């Protein structure tokens, strides 16, 4: 494959996944700027390390990078919260946390112009544990196979099935009124 062909294939692949990837990152972080940064990191990571791999391997590799970045983002935030808790008074922490965007409130931009069902689905997804949210997004929305989802999440096929089953149960229960 020539360099130009490879670049064209990479461009087509990234174009096909970028918007869904951004939504995944946005639902995971509740912050569009951070989500954009994570998607950008994933794009650069794929191009830098895996551009020479077969194009059919790109989807699980891209999502693996993205999910790792999202995991790191959560770790950083958790660490920041812990440090704040150690070094600041409770009142200071409360003030700082109040100043930050609420991680449990969906970004208004994400909900804009969406039907109630769409908004409720996004809120329900955000309330899921991270692994269940990941597996639902990758397996159901992105349409990855069980094996590719396991590769992207860095877990076994069995874990994928377990997390997915739990996620489906919760989502169905929460959105019972919205789907036929």
């Amino acid at each position: 494959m020539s360099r130009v062909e490879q670049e064209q294939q990479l461009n087509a692949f990234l174009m096909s996944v970028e918007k869904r990837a951004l939504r995944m990152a946005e639902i995971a972080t509740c912050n569009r700027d951070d989500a954009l940064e994570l998607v950008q990191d994933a794009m650069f990571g794929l191009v830098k390390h895996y551009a020479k791999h077969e194009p059919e391997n790109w989807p699980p590799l891209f999502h693996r990078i993205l999910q790792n970045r999202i995991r790191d983002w959560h770790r950083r935030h958790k660490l920041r919260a812990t440090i704040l808790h150690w070094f600041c008074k409770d009142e200071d922490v409360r003030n700082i946390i109040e100043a930050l965007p609420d991680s449990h409130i969906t970004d208004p931009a994400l909900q804009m112009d969406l039907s109630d069902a769409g908004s409720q689905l996004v809120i329900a997804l955000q309330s899921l544990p991270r692994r269940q949210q990941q597996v639902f997004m990758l397996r159901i929305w992105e349409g990855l196979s069980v094996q590719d989802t396991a590769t992207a999440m860095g877990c076994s096929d069995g874990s994928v099935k377990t997390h997915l089953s739990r996620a489906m149960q919760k989502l169905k229960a929460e959105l019972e009124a919205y789907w036929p």
Partner: protein
Amino acid sequence: MTDKHDFESFANQKLNETVEHMGHTTATRLAVMRHEAIASTTDRKQNCFMLAALASAMAAFMLTWMMPQQNNSKPDLPMQAGVIEDFDLLASDIELELLEDVEFYQWLESSKHAG
């Protein structure tokens, strides 16, 4: 269609709507990011090429600098000259017996002086 598939298609449809409603600004930012990521491969290759060229130039410079040094330095030249003389003697037509005789007379002369 089963409940499971109904729910999956419902969820997919709603999530796809969120993508369809993505603003132009965000879509443009994504496109810019994509192009930058792809361009980074070319930049990286160019950087590698520049690095290789620089390394080659340095190696060539070192070689050209080292070669005259090696030509000028001949620390074992006297020994090499002695070896060459020996080979010359061996290669010459003079017989070894005659050389031994000469060495004997030289020794005799020196022992007479000593005595």
